[in-house]
């Protein structure tokens, strides 16, 4: 009996303590992983910038390297493993966008190259592009009339 009530008490303690600490741990993991991805990006950026590439070109090359790396990790099944621990740390950087394109493309390959790969590729990337395009037109309109 004692052990049962101990267990009950313990369960309640776990329940009370875990939400806040889980969020805390998740945030630390997201910070470390997301920060690391950005730091790696900065290392490449410095490298290209020091070799005389223009800002925009260096930026695109860095994004390209991170995107291709993330897709290779996705193929190997490693990016999803990282995502289980890193949460937003692997979702929010551009590598998460690349993973969101490659992962459904691979998963829905069996539904065909057109409606499987071609369509499912944009399950998450599509909304990002749609709302990004909408926002850019709004910004462009305001800029055109205000400037």
């Amino acid at each position, binding site marked *: 009996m004692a052990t049962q009530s101990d267990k009950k008490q313990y369960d309640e303690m776990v329940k009370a303590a875990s939400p806040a600490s889980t969020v805390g741990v998740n945030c630390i993991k997201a910070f470390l992983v997301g920060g690391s991805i950005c730091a790696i990006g900065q290392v490449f950026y410095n490298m290209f910038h020091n070799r005389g590439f223009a800002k925009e070109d260096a930026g695109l090359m860095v994004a390209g390297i991170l995107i291709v790396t993330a897709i290779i990790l996705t193929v190997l099944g490693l990016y999803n493993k990282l995502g289980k621990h890193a949460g937003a740390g692997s979702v929010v950087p551009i590598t998460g966008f690349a993973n*969101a394109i490659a992962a459904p493309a691979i998963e829905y390959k069996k539904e065909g190259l057109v409606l499987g790969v071609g369509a499912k590729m944009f399950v998450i990337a599509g*909304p990002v592009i749609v709302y990004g395009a909408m926002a850019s037109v709004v910004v462009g309109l305001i800029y055109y009339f205000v400037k």
Partner: protein
Amino acid sequence: MNILWAFIVGGAICVIGQLLIDLTKLTPARILVLFVVAGCILGGFGWYDKLVEFAGAGASIPLPGFGNLLARGVKKAVDERGFLGVITGGFTAMAGGVTVAVVFGYLAALISSPKHKK
């Protein structure tokens, strides 16, 4: 030194995303949309570029940086070709990143077979 700031600022932006996931039950897809739109609006005012100057990849690699890229692109296009720039600027700015992701995502699908769910 700028590598450290990229780490800190990039990490902090991801923490904001993590808090949104854990505390608001927003799905990751909605957070990505939210971040891109937010980055585009902040970029429209020119505020996000200040963060990019300071934190480099720490600000440009997270998704708000993608939104900022769109804002920067559309403003540049409006400067260069007037009203038509409003409709071409955003997609021109995202062309590079999206094309790389689509091409390599497609190749990835071609060479791999879907994992069986355990």
